[in-house]
């Protein structure tokens, strides 16, 4: 019988994709500042928030990779 993936696997995968995309965008913005920056741009939120999402996503994938619902 085929084993079903847990929903947490899909959640982790999406978070990882989003995290990487957001983090890369943030890093790119370090070199190429936005012409119209948002408030608190000096905190570089995309970099650390993207990294947090990516790490959380990878953790969820690893935890759920072998689990079924």
């Amino acid at each position, binding site marked *: 019988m085929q084993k079903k993936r847990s929903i947490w696997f899909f959640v982790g995968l999406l978070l990882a*994709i989003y995290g990487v*995309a957001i983090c890369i965008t943030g890093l790119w*913005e370090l070199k190429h500042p*936005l*012409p119209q*920056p948002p*408030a608190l741009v000096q905190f570089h*939120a995309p970099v650390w928030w993207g990294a947090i999402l990516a790490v959380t996503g990878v953790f969820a994938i690893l935890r759920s990779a072998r689990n079924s619902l």
Partner: protein
Amino acid sequence: MQLLPAAYVVMPQTLALCLASPMRNSQLIHLSGVDIFLIVTYFVFVIFIGFYARSSANTGEDFFMAGREMTAWIAGLSFVSANLGALELMGWAGSAYQYGILAAHGYWIGAIPAMLFLGLVMMPFYYISKANSVPGYLYLRFGKPTRAFSAVSFAFMTILMSGINMYSMALVMKVVLNWDLNFSIWLSSVVVAIYVALGGLRSAIFNEILQFVLIWAGALLIPILGLIEVGGWKHLMHQIETNLGRTDYTHLWKPLAHFNQNPMGVHWTGIVFGWGFVLAFGYWTTDFLVVQRVLAAKNLRSAQMAPIIGAAFKMMVPLIVILPGLLALSVLPFHLLPESVAIATGGHSYNEVLPLMLVHYCGPALIGLGVTALIAGFMSGMAGNVSAFSTVWTYDIYGAFLNKKASDQHYVAMGRWCTLVGVLVSVGTAYLVQHTASIMDYALQLFSFFVAPLFGTVILGMLWKRATNAGGFWGLMSGTITSISLWAWVAHDPAALRYVALSSAAQGMAENMYRALWAWIVCVTVTIVVSLMTSPRPAAELEGLVLGSTGVQVVDDAARWYQQPIFWAGVVMVAFIALNLALW
């Protein structure tokens, strides 16, 4: 009134450009390539999950009840997520801007006690009776007429609510991204129809979990950055009080001593009894949209723990909804307006506060994440309504009255078709509600019509053995008629509000709360009187359906004390009380 001294904040350039002339018809957000990538990826995931869940949705139990194999965590998060739709995200953020911290009552007194009550007291009856729906429980407890009445009224309400979700989403996409209303309505409808029709409740629940995580990922940055910008919670409260010149925006209970001492125009009795008791208990314990998620739990303990886990997360939602509204009172350099005034003057309305705050703090990629979170919230609300409608139609209307002897496969096929039809009818109602002045008011009206009296019927059915079939039916019928009549009375003669809400100082929001309270009182009174005048049902017929009958075990003797639902409900309750005292 100037909300903020010019030197109070440094206005970010993006927001300044968007709002240099804060006109409603200007597009708030311009999506970059990475934003579009994030949004498209989300839609691909959602549809993929629909196809993935399809292979596990072959029987009626699979399609309508997700196989009854969900863990407490998944059922609990889905329970909260199904409610985290348009009203939650946009409506309550706008209410926080309009009413201040009083809006948090919608999450705390207006949800937490009811959710804990569902887990501890009501869930054993729902779960052990093996009813597939709330009307299904009413059939077992009160017979066919009560089931028919509640199923039809629920189906009617659900389709209207689904339409509200669609319209709200389309409206936001129009304001935020300048997307065409028709494009947004049809895009969201088609996606929801595909994944719910394919995978049924399992698909809806899985997507709700995905949406719940996305909503937090997309919205949590706003309060984090907002609190940094204003210098912390105490500074925020101080700024709001200074800017507005009043303290009723920053206290939860103090301003509720009188109708005219708070921006909601409501008395604490309305909040506690109308909202906290009747409307909240009615919605969280009898609205099948949310109860269906808990019925999908794999055992009774999971079914009891699910609403308690949901309550813990629900208590935290104000962080991403109410707090942005409060922060907007401090950091936005212009006033937001009531919807009707915003339309007339071309300004921004209260309901736009969340996207405005998103623009304030987020650049490319984070904007895409935030917009995806909004779309996810709208779609989860819509999918919840459609999947609940499909179940009630198939089991409680079609299977109960129109075609009683069809095969299980036939009912699954009917469920899939019903999902598609439900979405189409919702699209129609989405166009109808375009003329509604206030989306929140519209939703509360529907709840007071159908949910408040239903709560009276269900709670008496579960807790009072003597309640009879006739009592249940006539109580539900009279409560619903009372609620609709009171609405019609005030609609015809606005001065009648003073009689409905028991005060000449009452305002619109109070009407919904007191109307719900009257509907519940009439329902309970009629149920009791009619029951006492009719013959009671034999005890053997009530087994597993009512308190005191055999077959209902509320406490799991095998579980350790820290595994008992009542322990965790106590933890959540203590946190709930502490929050209310801290913000008194």
